[in-house]
């Protein structure tokens, strides 16, 4: 409950300095989760095409972002 009230307080304040930094942190978190799940899919033998379809982006985008990060090991 205490947690909920602190959320409300933060949202009520509507301070862009807080909200925007929070969104940036959320974006970083999403990036990390994406890495984990893409790595998992590749480990299970998924193709880049299949991963891209599930992520709802193009194969080229997934490939560009994750293939290089993974050291081009596939």
């Amino acid at each position, binding site marked *: 409950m205490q*947690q909920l009230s*602190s*959320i409300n307080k*933060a*949202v009520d304040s509507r301070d862009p300095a*807080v*909200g925007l*930094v*929070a*969104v*940036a*942190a*959320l974006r*970083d*978190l999403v990036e*990390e*989760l994406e*890495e*984990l799940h893409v790595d*998992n899919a590749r480990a299970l033998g998924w193709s880049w095409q299949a991963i891209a379809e599930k992520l709802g982006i193009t194969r080229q985008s997934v490939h560009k972002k994750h293939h*290089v*990060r993974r050291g081009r090991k596939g």
Partner: protein
Amino acid sequence: MFERCDVNTATVVDAALEEARRLGHAHLGTEHLLLALLQRRDLLPEVAAQLLPPDPDVVRSALAAAADAPPQRDADLLRVVGIELDEVRSVVRATFGPEALERLGRRRVHQPWQPWRRPSRRCSSLLAGTLSVAPRVKQALEHAGRDAERRHLDAIDPGALLLGMVEVEDAMSNRLLRESGADPDQIRRALGGVGS
């Protein structure tokens, strides 16, 4: 990076990490090393220890005044948008195992040459909760390593660490020392630093 530190210096670095976490900082900087050295001045040569500001709280408030804005913890930030970081962590741990979090903590952040994008501001992992090490700390350790060699030591002792820190001219620790009434140049001379 810290592998050349001796046992005493490792104790100081641990205390500095603790200090950084307590302050909610996402990086380990020379300011945290300084605060740690102030608490463990017993590990320093007497001549240098007595040149340090006597009261760590003076340095702490200088640090608070120097920061542009109060640092925000990742977990608090994410709570603003309704995400509980600890819950995400435990889900990830349950799905992929604890070693997945460890891997994230060790990952090298890949930065392709994309000048139109802002450089990634984060060299650490939200999920792993790791701290990145400030470039000034790396420079200080390089100086400290050279000082240890000059004194024919096998490893970096706390004295060498402090000397390394004062030798990085624009380090945050030097600024804090000056603002707390201490003189980095005097410390450098006391520790036998070259070029003083």
